[in-house]
């Protein structure tokens, strides 16, 4: 079998793309330079009834940018679509990768079509589709989410299988037994870089949002009373939060995420405390809402206690470790010790910041009239905090949630980069970057591929947060 080139039989298009990109860069530059001299935009009504927005060189550059950008996007789509349709191998590496990602493309198209169709009925989520930046960010994020979901369909090889002839081979090299290609090359042990990158997305997409949700639960449960009551409680909690924030993150990871600490059971004790917060939060949430109907409230609280309690004990405890509460036959969720410690330390690092944000918002909102009205009606403090203040703080919190998932992704990568926590065999992006960077002079792709994957996900989350911020400010 022959080695694949990047674009295969579509390489005719390459020169077109090259010229278009050059022209696009030139036009954008021209537009920026011209914008310093451009007159203010004036809407001019022509005698024939038409309206011209902006003419001259600046207007021309503006139009040129738009059309060139659209042309480039269309060409990129041609590459991807043709690659998915053409028989395997003739679309080059890009085509073959696009073919593997077919389920992701279909899901993305369906999701966007449905969301665009019903965007007026979908609240803030629907408004996201009014902002270009937000849509781009959302598309990138959903791309990785779908990739993680379909990872088992997409991978071409087992992530741990080593083929010794494929060590540090370039992208598109065929396997010696002719059963296919290493689409994005082989790493220093002869494993498939493409499959490892895809499998790595699963780890990030599972841990990062969950850890962020937990951090938010902790931050909200502590930040609401700190901001609302103030006084000694606030002073104490703020001191604790500042204490954790003053701790350099890397030092913290190095101290907490070591085999010695796992031995002492410390991460599990931390998990015992941190994982309690979601249950407490849900209970307070239900209690404050249904306080007036004790029957319903008691049923709901009992349900939360049983279901939440089971998950709690099952997550935290593990047979044979220091915290083993459930008998092994009942303990169905097995969290490996090194995964748990990564999770716990990421939650621990993130929660003080969330606490500070929530506290700040509560300090602002509690001076509003509707809070005073609630107090006058005799509503209880927790009802006001959770059902009056929290919903009004949702805008900044949702935006921060997106940003924080990105930050958590960076933290997970940092842990992997220093070889802390996850096993060195693990395909997560941080560990693969760490393994690849040591041989940068020999082969670059094993480090570059996961690096770009991580960057694109974080960029997508940041763009999404930007779009959401813009749209929620319009409310």
């Amino acid at each position: 079998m022959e080695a694949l080139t990047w674009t295969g039989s579509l390489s005719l298009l390459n020169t077109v793309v090259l010229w278009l990109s050059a022209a696009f860069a030139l036009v954008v530059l021209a537009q920026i330079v011209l914008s310093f001299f451009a007159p203010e935009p004036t809407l001019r009504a022509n005698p024939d009834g038409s309206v011209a927005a902006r003419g001259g060189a600046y207007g021309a550059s503006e139009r040129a940018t738009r059309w060139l950008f659209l042309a480039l996007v269309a060409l990129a789509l041609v590459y991807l679509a043709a690659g998915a349709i053409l028989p395997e191998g003739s679309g080059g590496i890009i085509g073959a990768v696009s073919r593997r990602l077919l389920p992701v493309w279909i899901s993305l198209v369906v999701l966007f079509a449905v969301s665009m169709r019903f965007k007026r009925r979908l609240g803030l989520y629907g408004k996201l589709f009014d902002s270009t930046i937000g849509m781009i960010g959302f598309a990138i994020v959903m791309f990785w989410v779908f990739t993680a979901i379909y990872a088992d369909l997409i991978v071409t090889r087992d992530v741990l299988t080593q083929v010794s002839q494929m060590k540090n081979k370039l992208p598109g090299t065929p396997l010696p037994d002719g059963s296919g290609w290493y689409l994005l090359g082989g790493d220093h042990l002869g494993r498939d870089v493409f499959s490892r990158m895809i499998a790595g997305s699963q780890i990030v997409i599972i841990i990062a949002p969950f850890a962020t949700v937990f951090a938010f639960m902790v931050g909200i449960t502590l930040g609401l009373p700190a901001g609302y009551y103030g006084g000694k409680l606030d002073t104490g909690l703020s001191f604790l939060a500042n204490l954790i924030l003053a701790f350099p993150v890397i030092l913290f990871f190095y101290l907490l995420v070591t085999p010695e600490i796992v031995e002492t059971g410390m991460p599990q004790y931390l998990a015992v405390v941190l994982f309690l917060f979601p249950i407490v939060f849900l209970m307070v949430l239900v209690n404050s809402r249904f306080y007036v109907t004790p029957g319903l409230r008691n049923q709901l609280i009992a349900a939360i206690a049983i279901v939440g309690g089971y998950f709690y004990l099952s997550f935290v405890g593990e047979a044979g470790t220091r915290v083993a509460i459930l008998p092994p036959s009942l303990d169905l969720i097995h969290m490996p010790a090194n995964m748990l410690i990564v999770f716990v330390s990421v939650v621990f690092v993130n929660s003080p910041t969330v606490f500070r944000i929530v506290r700040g918002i509560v300090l602002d909102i509690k001076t509003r009239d509707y809070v005073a009205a609630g107090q006058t009606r005799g509503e209880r403090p927790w009802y006001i905090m959770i059902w009056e203040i929290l919903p009004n703080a949702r805008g900044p919190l949702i935006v921060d949630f997106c940003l924080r998932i990105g930050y958590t992704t960076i933290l997970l990568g940092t842990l992997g980069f220093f070889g802390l926590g996850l096993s060195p065999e693990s395909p997560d992006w941080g560990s693969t970057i760490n393994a690849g960077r040591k041989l940068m002079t020999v082969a670059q792709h094993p480090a570059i591929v996961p690096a770009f994957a991580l960057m694109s996900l974080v960029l997508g989350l940041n763009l999404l947060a930007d779009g959401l911020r813009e749209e929620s400010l319009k409310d």
Partner: protein
Amino acid sequence: MLKFLVRRLATMVLTALCLTLIVFYLTNLPPNLEKLAKSEAGSRISDAEVASWLEKNGHASPLLVRYGEWLGVVPGWTHEDGGVTTGRCIERGQDPATARRYCGVLQGDWGFSSVFKDNVSSIIATRLGLTGLLMFWVMAVMVPVSLLIGVLAGMREGSKLDRSLSTFSIATTATPEYVSGVILIAAFATSMGWKVFKGTATSAMDEITFENFFLPVMTIALYGIGYIARMTRASMTEVMTAQYIRTARLKGVSFRNVVIRHALRNALIAPFTVIMLQFPWLLNGVVITETLFNYKGFGWTLVSAAGNNDIQLLLGCSVVAVFVVLVTQLISDIGYVFLNPRIRIS
């Protein structure tokens, strides 16, 4: 003002004490001490021998006492064994009677590194010097570039320049150091890209050249640039919509003069705090970048101390790190009060 300063300093000292106690606790956990004993006295010693080694070297006393000894507020331990007295403050060959009673961080005695076989204070001093150089160049690149980007972007909100620069800032904040470092090395220091710089900064420890220092400096600076630029942009757009800017425009002041004379000074107050608070972040970046480029400065020392269970050195590094973070927080608070006349502290 004085009362504010005193309160701020008291909180700072309390925070520093708490943090060093936590670090001390985490580095002196029983498994770490056991590992230390095995690496110092031989890896095949029995549990009883480990216990006696710990006893002999003053690691057996309660945690708070050991912390006090390390800090220098509790007299150092002494141990008598067959007429020979050893102790924390007694150097080899010294007469126990002439030794000091207290020897801790407060007395300037930072301990002895078990891996580098040198005094912790002298190791940290050399390493900090190297990192200081790196930080200086990072600041020299990062601050002007990010302020310029922020001001240009915030000057006309929504313009093409604003969009392009904002996209650039978002992209750099989305790129952590280990990603941008790897991409920069691949692009500028390997055969894959354009081979103009060096992919390692080891030679920069002796002599800094543009060739060996550009990539590490850019790696750290890039991540900060986006963040500071976004803050500057936000503050600039806020100032540009203020009443006095409109008044100046209506008076007939040219746009250029409005930006330079009226807007800039007020717009730069917020970024000052952000830049100062970036120091803890830079510390992160320094650790990653020094590891990536093999530049043996403070960050590299921290990583190797943590990786090799070098307890004294790790404690020393943590003290420095915590100190840097707290002092920058203090400076940013005080500086903000001085720069912003609207804030009064009585």
